Every structure is written in C-alpha cells, then in structure tokens.
C-alpha cells in the first residue's frame, strides 16, 4: 500500500498555504467548521462505516492503481476527515498538505463509490467537506484557486470581461449569419421562453459551441435569449474549492439574471459540474429547496426538441460512437435514458462502454480536478487507466461526451494512452447533421 506522503506534488497554492499554518490555527478552523457547518450526517457516516472496503472498486483511482488501498474511498475518508474528527483537528500543517492533495486531486467527487457502499456512505460529500476545511485554512491548489478568484471577481470562471462576453455573442451571431442569414442571438429578450446559459470556456475558446447552439435554436424556432450581464456563466469552481460564500454569490447572480428576464426556464449547455451547482449545492446554500428557476441540461432540451420534431437531420452519423456518462447529470440527475435516446436518434451505431450509465467510470477531470492544472495532470492520467481500457474496448473512434470537464479529461486520456479516438459534444453532431438552408 502506498501512502499520500510518498507522492506529494509541488503546488504553489498548497505550499504557500501550508507555510502559513500553525497547529493551533488548524485546530481552531477544523473545530469551528465541524461544529458549525456539519452535523449528524457526517457523524453517522463515520460511525457506521464498517471499513468493509466495498467502496474500493467504485473508485477509478483505486482500479487504475492495481487495487492500491491508499486510493480506496474509505481510506481517503479515513486519512482526511475521519482523522480530523478523531484528532479534533490536532494535526500538523504537512498533514493538511497531504489531505488537501488527496481531497482536491485524488477524488473527483463523482459519487460512484456511494453505489457500492452497503449503507450508502457518500464519500464525495465527505471529501467536499475536507476541501471546505482546506479552503478555510487557505490550502488550495493554485490553478483552481485562481479560477475561483475569477468567479468572485468577474462572475465567470475565465476572467472574461463584461464586454468580451457580449462581443463574443455578437461575433458568433455575425459568423453564423453567413450560414443562416436570419439567425439571431437575442440579447436580454425579456419574456423569452428559454434563457441559454453556458460556461466561460465557451466564449473564451469554444465559441463554436455558442455558434452551434444558436444554429439549433434558430432551426428549431425556439423563443430564446442570452443575458448581456454577468450571471451568464452557470459554472462554479467556488463550489469545488470549498468557497461556499462565493458559490452562493454566483448562483444568486445566475438565477437572478434569469428572473429579471422573466424567462420560463434556463437551458444549460453540455456541462456536468454546473448542473451539480444549480440543482444541488449552490441553490441549497441560498436556502432554496429546489431550483428557483428550472434549469434543464442540454441533453434534456435536445431530447425535447427531437421528440417534438423540431430537430430535423439529413442523415444519421455514419461512424460508430460510444457514450460517456458524465457523473453529475447521470448519477446526479438520471439522464442516462434520454442521453441514449438522443444519441441513437443521431447515430447509426452505438457501442456501449462497460460498465455504463450510472455505473460508468468518471472521466477523472470532474470535481475540479482538471482545474487544479498542469501539476496534477499525471495524477489524472495514471489515475484513470481504467477509463482508457474502457474506451479502448469499445473499438470505436468517436466518443459522445455531453460535458466540458469530461471532454478535457477524456481527450487527455486519449492522448496519454494513444487511443486514437476523438470526443464530440452532442451539439457537434446535431450541427453536422441538421438540415441547413442553402445560401
């Protein structure tokens, strides 16, 4: 069995944070957090865990490291939160470094392990609370911390300035008009049925996704709008950092921008973690039991359009494809059937990964792990050999991936293991196949 102390990775955020720690401060923060922000759920998890290890095979890190117990979910909980609880926070600063590295980069909060636990312990929740403690101790990996700073300062995760956002939409509208002459990306259209929200990488470097969404909305005759003001980014690295205060600020901005436009619902693009933030964590931190404005994922939306006959394709995608089931919208929301309905409508042949649906392995990018940046890329690559094996076994070249983080993670896995595959968003395929006007 390896130990986290033997695989410490240098990171500016973790190092500078730990350098400023004292055991007294750790004890104070841990005690305050456990007393003030957690309760019976966490205690019940700790006291009922039988250390049976059935969760182990739920974890892609454990499976990818030849069943090394160090990566088992129960060990991660034991070496972090349970230790903090047992020792009442009396641990050394270096131990906090180890816990932070484990919580931020060796757990994707994917919750697969919860399916394997006989009593349903949610290790993802436990590790989230470890991250919260690390955030309050100022011990957070540099790159994801910077992303959270961007969220707090600009209300989006990529330091996109207010004018750059609007300009990107107007630019994509202009581009698309060469192909769809009457296309509009309606800004701030009060009373529209649909508010379309995205994550900041789209205006920053995946603008084709905005183009494609506009093309689909236009072809389907949807009454839609996009906001010109901050709140347009539904993503949330503050949630994964453990900065719940700014998670709340972000979600408030997102929901209020939709409420001001008097839309019926928000349709979000193909992102997984943002869905967790809008329907599970961010909304609840604000005091909402449910979502104050309904948010549906793009899969749900495309499924509706297809069933209403509003998406017309010229032919089906010829190459066989496989499907990545993103954790937050499959285990988190149960969209596995709709995802398959959509992909089977669009594609001639679907070769399923094994296991799949709610048992599918995480991409190893989610939960903010890919956002921890280059220092931890190898952690993701070696930590997800099982995904590479799963992908390779399908024998196909195209992977339908309806999630931004899964895209980044799987493209990295494909490159690292030389799988000669390629990821596609659903909108990539719809756009490629849809009927287009002759210009």
């Amino acid at each position, binding site marked *: 069995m390896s130990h986290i102390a033997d695989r410490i990775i240098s990171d500016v955020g973790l190092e500078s944070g730990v350098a400023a720690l004292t055991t007294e401060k750790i004890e104070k923060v841990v005690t305050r957090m456990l007393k003030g922000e957690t309760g019976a759920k966490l205690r019940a998890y700790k006291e009922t865990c039988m250390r049976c290890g059935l969760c182990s095979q739920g974890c892609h890190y454990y499976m990818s490291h030849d069943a090394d117990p160090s990566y088992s979910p129960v060990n991660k909980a034991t070496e972090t939160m349970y230790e903090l609880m047992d020792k009442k926070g009396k641990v050394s600063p270096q131990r906090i470094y180890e816990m932070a590295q484990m919580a931020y980069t060796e757990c994707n909060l994917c919750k697969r392990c919860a399916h394997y636990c006989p009593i349903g312990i949610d290790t993802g929740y436990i590790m989230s609370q470890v991250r919260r403690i690390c955030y309050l101790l100022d011990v957070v990996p540099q790159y994801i911390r910077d992303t959270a700073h961007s969220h707090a300062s600009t209300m989006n995760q990529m330091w996109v300035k207010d004018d750059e956002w609007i300009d990107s939409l107007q630019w994509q509208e202009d581009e698309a008009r060469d192909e769809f002459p009457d296309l509009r990306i309606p800004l701030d259209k009060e009373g529209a049925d649909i508010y379309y929200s995205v994550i900041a990488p789209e205006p920053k470097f995946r603008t084709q996704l905005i183009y494609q969404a506009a093309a689909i909305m236009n072809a389907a005759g949807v009454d839609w709008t996009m906001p010109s003001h901050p709140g347009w980014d539904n993503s949330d690295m503050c949630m994964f950092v453990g900065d719940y*205060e700014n998670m709340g*600020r972000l979600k408030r901005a997102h929901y209020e921008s939709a409420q001001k436009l008097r839309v019926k*619902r928000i349709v979000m693009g193909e992102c997984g973690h943002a869905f967790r933030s809008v329907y599970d964590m961010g909304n609840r931190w604000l*005091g909402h039991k449910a979502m*104050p*404005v309904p948010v549906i994922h793009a899969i749900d939306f495309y499924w509706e359009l297809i069933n209403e006959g509003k998406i017309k394709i010229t032919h089906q995608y010829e190459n066989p494809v496989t499907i990545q089931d993103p954790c937050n919208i499959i285990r988190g929301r149960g969209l596995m059937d709709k995802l398959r309905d959509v992909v089977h409508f669009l594609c001639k042949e679907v070769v399923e990964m094994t296991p799949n649906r709610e048992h599918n392995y995480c991409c190893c990018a989610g939960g903010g792990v890919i956002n921890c940046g280059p220092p931890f890329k190898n952690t993701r690559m070696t930590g997800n050999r099982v995904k590479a094996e799963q992908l390779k076994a399908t024998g196909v070249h195209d992977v339908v991936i309806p999630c931004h983080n899964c895209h980044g993670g799987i493209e990295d896995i494909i490159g690292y293991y030389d799988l000669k595959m390629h990821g596609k968003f659903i909108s990539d395929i719809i756009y490629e196949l849809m009927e287009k006007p002759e210009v």
Partner: protein
Amino acid sequence: MGKISSWDWEPGQKTVVKSLSPLEGHEWQEEPYVSPDGETIVAIVKVGDGEFSVRTNDSVWDATFEKIWYPKFSPDGRLAAICQQDMEWVLVADGETMGETTDYIWDTMFSEDGSSIATMYKSMERYGMSVNGEPWENLYENATMPAFTKDGAHTAAVVQAESMAAADLDGFKRGAYTVAVDGEAWKGRYVNIWNPVFNDAGDSLAATCRTTVYAHTIVVDDKPWDETYTQVWEPVFCPKDGGVVAPVRVAGKWGVAKDGKILWEPRYVQCFYLQYSPSGEDLWAVVATSYGQFTACVNNAAWNETWPTVSDLVVSPDGQRAAILASNCNEDFRIVVDGTPWSGTYDMAWPAVFSADSKNVAAKVEKNGRFRILVNGKSFERDFDAVWPPIFNEDGTKVLIRAIENNSYVRIVAEVCNF
C-alpha cells in the same frame, strides 16, 4: 415627454400603430419596445445588407448602423441604443450620436429625469464609464458593476486598480480591486468589491467587499466597517439618518447589520433585497424563515405565509405597503400584496406597481401565452398578445395600458374603478 401629468390621460383606446408588420423593404424587425408614455413603439429593423436602423411607430431613423442593440427608453422619453459603425461603438439617442466612437460601450443607465445617460466604456483595452458620451479621464484594467447618481452628476464602478500576473494568488489576496468615482479610484484596495450604490444625494457610496479572503463586510466611502462576516449582500442607505444597512451572515444565519452593528439578529435562512421606506422608518426585505420558505419582512417581522420562491419586492411610495412575486420555483406565480396573494396563478408575472398615493396596485401577468393587466387583483376586461407593465396617473384613478392586439399597437387609458 415630461411628467406623467402631462401625458394624455383621456380614458379610452387609441391605436398608435395600425400594423406592426415590417415596413416595406425591411428584411426583419426585432421585438418591440414601448415608451413610458405609450406614444411610441420602436424596434430594431434590418434595412439592408449589414445595415440596421430603428423603426419608430411608422417611420425609421435616418441613421443606419452595422449593428444596434440594447434599446432603452430614458425617463425623458428618448430612445437610447448602442450602435456599431465602422467596427466601433457609440451611444445613440433618438438617432443622434453622443460622443466619439470607441472600442466598446455597454450597460446604459439613466439619471432620474433622463437628462443624463451613462454607459460602461472601453478604449484601447482600458475600462471605465462615460456620461453623455464623455469618458472618464482615468481608465483601468477592468471596470464592472456601474452605479449612477439620481441626478446624473456622478458615476462609479468597481475597477481593477492593480495588475495581476496569471494565477497570481498573492496579488489577488493583497487586493487589486477598488471603486472609482467619476474615474478617481479610492485609495483602499480590496480582495473583492461588489455592488456599489450611491445614496440619494449622490455624495456617499457604499459597497460590499472582502477585506481578506475570508472577511466580508461593507465599505462606505473607502472605510470598511470594523465588523466582518462570513457573507454580506448589497448595502442600502437609510434615507432618515444616512446610515448603511446590509444583510449579513453570522454562524450560518442571516440578519441585518447597520453601520457595523447588528440590527436584526441573524435568524433567517436567507435575507436579501433590503429596501427602506422613503421616511427611513421602515426597513423591508425578502427573507427565508425556514429552508425553502421565502416571504417578505418589515422591521424584522415576516409575513405569515411563505412560498418556495419570492422575488421583486416592491415597497409602496408611503413605505407602508409592499408587494412581491411568489412562485413555485418559477411556476404558478402569484402577486402577493401586504402578505395576501391575489386570486389566480400565472405562468409569469412582472413586478407590481403602486399608485403614487399607495392605495392601488397593478401588475402585468401572463397565462397560456396571453397577457393581462391586473389592478387590485382584478383583470382588465380583455387580454392581449403582448402588454407592457402598467403605469398609474398622478392621482391613481387611471392606469395606462400599452398593448399589442391583432398586430396593432394600442394605448389604453382605463379607469381604476372599472376594474
């Protein structure tokens, strides 16, 4: 356009534009906007290849632009829009440009009487604000969250006053942000600063801020409160004594602090949208009394009934009454006045409007794709294809309805007693 009293309040209906079909030669016409007095309906129109203009009733601006967006009527009745010409942007009011073109402008704001118009402003990758086309002398690396005084004399925005390298955690923690008033940055630097707001006189400004990563508080004229909290929402000035109040979160519960001292003991699951009565005697808010149970609250006394979602708190001019929009997570909207919902649920609702004497309340609602105007809970005699929020006349006896029916734009003055 002048004061409301100068508008046409003769009861009855007038067809302002008989046909809203695109005018001859227009390739398309976008969604319409209506002036407050109801005499003008406008829409952005495509008049040629890459050429856009603004249709105003049955005529069109002489000027054309490559792109037009953000059409807004100012309180004095002018139509302001943001227009692009030769790849640069300029503010245009009633077809006349205001100031020089620049790299980008956005976020149009008006003074109370509409005589001054402010926008956000960008030139050569530097950011600030502009008033009536005149940009700040000092520009910054970034500027967000604009504020504009009621009299139009002063502008403010959150600005990035210090440079930061990529992923510069230390630079961020030292504080790179502050507020610039009329382009002059405060001396203080903050980890973050949000939601600047001027007092009514325009001589004081408060904002939400983080003085350290973990210390949230309120800053007034560059002086942070001594007390800090785990989270703070946007501040409001008290019109009575000039003090500043804000919702604050302590030990997981929300309350209200005034000038750094607790005013409402933290006991709510949520508390936001603070508003003072004009006298400053009464403080209103939206609160969650329990998880998922939202309602309005005055002077720390919540209304009895709660709803899953509450928004758009509107306080009456006398400060004694209030209305909110309550919904079941954006469905089954109800207009709730003084704690009691009007009968009927709606697919969408717009903020309630009080008459100047605070006695009457009106609102726009949508049901099954049709739009209605309600006054004191009762509907106007018919519904419309589209309608704009109602406006009361000065004595509150009449209400102006601006609506589209059968492809015509109509202006209706209805008597409140007939609802």
